[in-house]
């Protein structure tokens, strides 16, 4: 009699592949009961790929709209077989789709697709990130001027930075709205995007930044002090102005409170 572990090992392999020894081992365990054992196994395989494909389509609505249902499902099938969920909760599933698409030959004609996926994953992460209050501008103003240079400002837990050589914000907006003409019009141009995703209330929201502001925030996120981070901003954009960049980011709540960042 096969052990429970052997049964589950056989099903594990048979669910992720369609044929071969693994499938034979699994179907051999199934009682003959008026229906081919492989057809019974296929009910479960369908469920696994269909529901995980649904989860990916829900996570990546713009990528889905961009490539269409048939293409998306074919890509999802390959992705699921290669990168099945590793946690028993689906909010953590699907984070490697961008990297997968980079190596997915049928998508090579859409070079911006991986970045679009990266943006959608950032929005998903932001939606699920823990709630955290924002840095109060008055708290920052109370710091002595000489302390600002080395001060580390941590980004809020729901903040995500995304950068692309392609105009992914406009692609995302056009694809999300199902506007095929707008997508086609953007397709031809190559213009870098510097984006911040941040939750506004309970919804993830997209902010378009200048290159300098983006590199400054990215340096802050890496734990650099305000002075060093500002230099990173300046290196990317000679017009970068720290004071001018601070104001909108304090308003939108990009930073975590001072009490929660190291002095």
């Amino acid at each position, binding site marked *: 009699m096969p052990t429970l572990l052997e049964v589950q090992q056989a099903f594990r392999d048979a669910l992720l592949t369609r044929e071969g020894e693994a499938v034979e081992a699994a179907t051999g365990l199934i009682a003959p009961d008026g*229906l081919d054992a492989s057809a019974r196994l296929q009910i479960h395989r369908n469920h696994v790929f269909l529901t*995980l494909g649904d989860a990916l389509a829900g996570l990546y609505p713009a990528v889905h709209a961009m490539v269409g249902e048939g293409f998306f499902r074919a890509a999802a099938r390959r992705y699921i077989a290669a990168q099945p969920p590793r946690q*028993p*909760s689906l909010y*953590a599933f699907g984070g490697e789709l961008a990297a997968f698409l980079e190596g997915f030959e049928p998508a090579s004609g859409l070079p911006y697709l991986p970045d679009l996926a990266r943006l959608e994953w950032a929005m998903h992460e932001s939606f*699920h990130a823990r709630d955290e209050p924002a840095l109060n501008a008055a708290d920052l103003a109370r710091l002595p001027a000489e302390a600002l240079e080395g001060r580390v400002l941590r980004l809020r837990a729901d903040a995500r930075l995304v950068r692309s050589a392609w105009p992914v914000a406009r692609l995302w907006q056009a694809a999300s709205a199902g506007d095929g003409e707008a997508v086609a019009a953007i397709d031809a141009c190559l213009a870098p995007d510097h984006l911040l995703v941040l939750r506004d209330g309970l919804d993830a929201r997209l902010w378009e930044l200048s290159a300098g502001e983006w590199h400054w925030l990215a340096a802050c996120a890496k734990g650099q002090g305000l002075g060093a981070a500002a230099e990173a901003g300046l290196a990317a954009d000679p017009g970068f102005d720290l004071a001018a960049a601070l104001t909108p980011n304090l308003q939108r709540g990009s930073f975590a409170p001072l009490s929660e960042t190291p002095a």
Partner: protein
Amino acid sequence: MSLDGPFPAATDTAATAIPVAAGIGLRAAHFEVLTQTRPAIGWLEIHPENYLGGGAPLAYLERARAHYPVSMHGVGLSLGSADGLDGRHLERLAALARRIGPGLISEHVSWSVHDGIYFNDLLPLPYTEESLAAVCRNIERAQEAFGRTILVENASTYLQFAHSTIAEPDFLRALAERTGCGLLLDVNNVYVSCRNHGWDAAAYLEALAGAPVGEIHLAGHAENRVGDRIVRIDDHGSHVAPAVWALYEAVLASFGPVPTLIEWDTDIPSLEVLLAEAGKAQALLDWAIRHADAA
């Protein structure tokens, strides 16, 4: 990965008992309308896995929890795993339970994780003494982590193992006897499994007579043609079938009134349609409550 962070600490919430009434599943599509209109429904059931990241989903859940008792119905704990439970996942579930104070906690008699891979499916178990011992071990570990007994649900099955030696209702009854857990009787799943395997639903219920049924599930199912056979699939995507309503009446007659959930997880209808379906269950529950009072 950034979604892997520790579950946010918060103050504990005392459990609110689930009333003997009809409830509905809390789904993202209904978050806004439900918290704004606060319809008269006895209780809500959640899939805890959707809230383990915290963030916006947990904020919505806490808004709903402020107005309704909540039951926590897991789909990913994998009580049937031969290699045991995922301790980290279990700890996160227990932390969520402390935070929202569910009136009931339930899971399935099936497996969905093996070797670290989560299949997002309720996979069937061979019904053997070895499986029984493994599931009992896992239930006991879960009950220890939650600090209370749980309910375990009969899954819909589409295949049987050649080496099974125990009938499904006997397997369920033995789980309850050995671990002290209760049963979540999914009436749609009883119907689906009985039709798929040619079992007798009345005999199935008879074999469970007197078992500690703490909750009932009702849902719609699909009829799919596979080869020359009709296979009934538990897809939670439509109204409860007339035959399942009839079986529900038989269940109420033999087990008495029990909290009853309408599950509708795919092709999710408007909240109005879902509430109307719960109203049908409530009417039958009311009848069972009157009948129980008169007896």
